[in-house]
């Protein structure tokens, strides 16, 4: 069971990151590239939270029910880091999208190979 969980969660995280990288590398539409960047982000967040998991652990919140029990808690540090990463991801996406809108307004297209031969 644990083996299956390991493979599925880590596999999903890596697959998400690869899908995102594929979109960044291969797609021509700038919007799709930005979407790819945020897919990489979500893969990374999933990986972080999965690393912090402890078997049979509860959320790291000391509610009155949990206080008395000796149940293990998942590692709170990766979750705090992911909170930061989500906010940074939002900032990156917002600025990238505004640049895309700006480029679209200027060139009337969001296809990166038509704007300039920036991409092969």
């Amino acid at each position: 069971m644990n083996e299956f969980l390991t493979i599925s969660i880590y596999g999903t995280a890596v697959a998400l990151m690869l899908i995102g990288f594929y979109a960044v590398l291969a797609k021509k539409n700038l919007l799709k590239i930005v979407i790819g960047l945020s897919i990489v982000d979500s893969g990374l967040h999933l990986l972080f939270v999965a690393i912090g998991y402890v078997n049979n652990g509860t959320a790291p919140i000391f509610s009155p029910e949990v206080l008395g029990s000796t149940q293990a808690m998942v590692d709170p540090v990766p979750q705090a880091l992911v909170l930061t990463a989500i906010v940074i991801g939002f900032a990156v996406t917002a600025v990238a999208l505004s640049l895309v809108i700006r480029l679209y307004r200027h060139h009337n297209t969001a296809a990166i190979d038509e704007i300039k031969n920036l991409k092969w």
Partner: protein
Amino acid sequence: MIKRIIVFLILATIGYFLVGVVSQIPFGEDRNNVGDYYIEKTPTELKVSNAVTAIVVNYRGFDTLGEVTVLFLAATGLSSIMYRRRRKGEKQIRAKLPSSRIIQIGSQILFPLIVLLGAYVFIHGHLSPGGGFQGGAIIATATLLMLISYRKFKVNHNVISWIESIAGVVFVTVGFVGLILGMTFLENFLPTGELNDLLSGGIIGIIYVAVGFKVASELAGVIDTVLLNNRPEAKNEN
């Protein structure tokens, strides 16, 4: 064709190294590292029930200050990138048709409830899942709801930037009070209270409320900027 091969070669390389690193990490094991220290100290030392909040706001508070700054810079950068001077007499076009009565009435009912939920989430950030960033995002969603249902709904950028600045100043001031009292920057100087009380955790509550206001106003400003300055039918004018 050659492009595609190169892309897949790059992806295969990235994937190989990712899998190589990730497969080294055991899943679900307690690694007895810094996390345990935080889990042990949070309820006894800080009297905060949510360990993630304790880490984000107290142990790594300086990091959060940087995070808030990044968010502020993103909002500012976005509005400076999107800014476009309007021609004389040019009106802001938001939507061709007003939304239906159902949406308008529904959003009028939902708006205060969503704001209430957001405020609840950031006030209880040290007790339950959630916090300043999440609550702020929820409140910004309420603004988005109003923006899509009413064509006339306006976000007052003056008010928003005042809220944002005051919230940021509160955050930094709370940090500096710690320095003045002879402790470190952002160290807790208030009584911590009882575990699982609303008024517990010392400065964490104050900081998270400030962060909530700041994030809410920033996100609302971002949404409004993107909606206002974007006019699909205007082409080739710069």
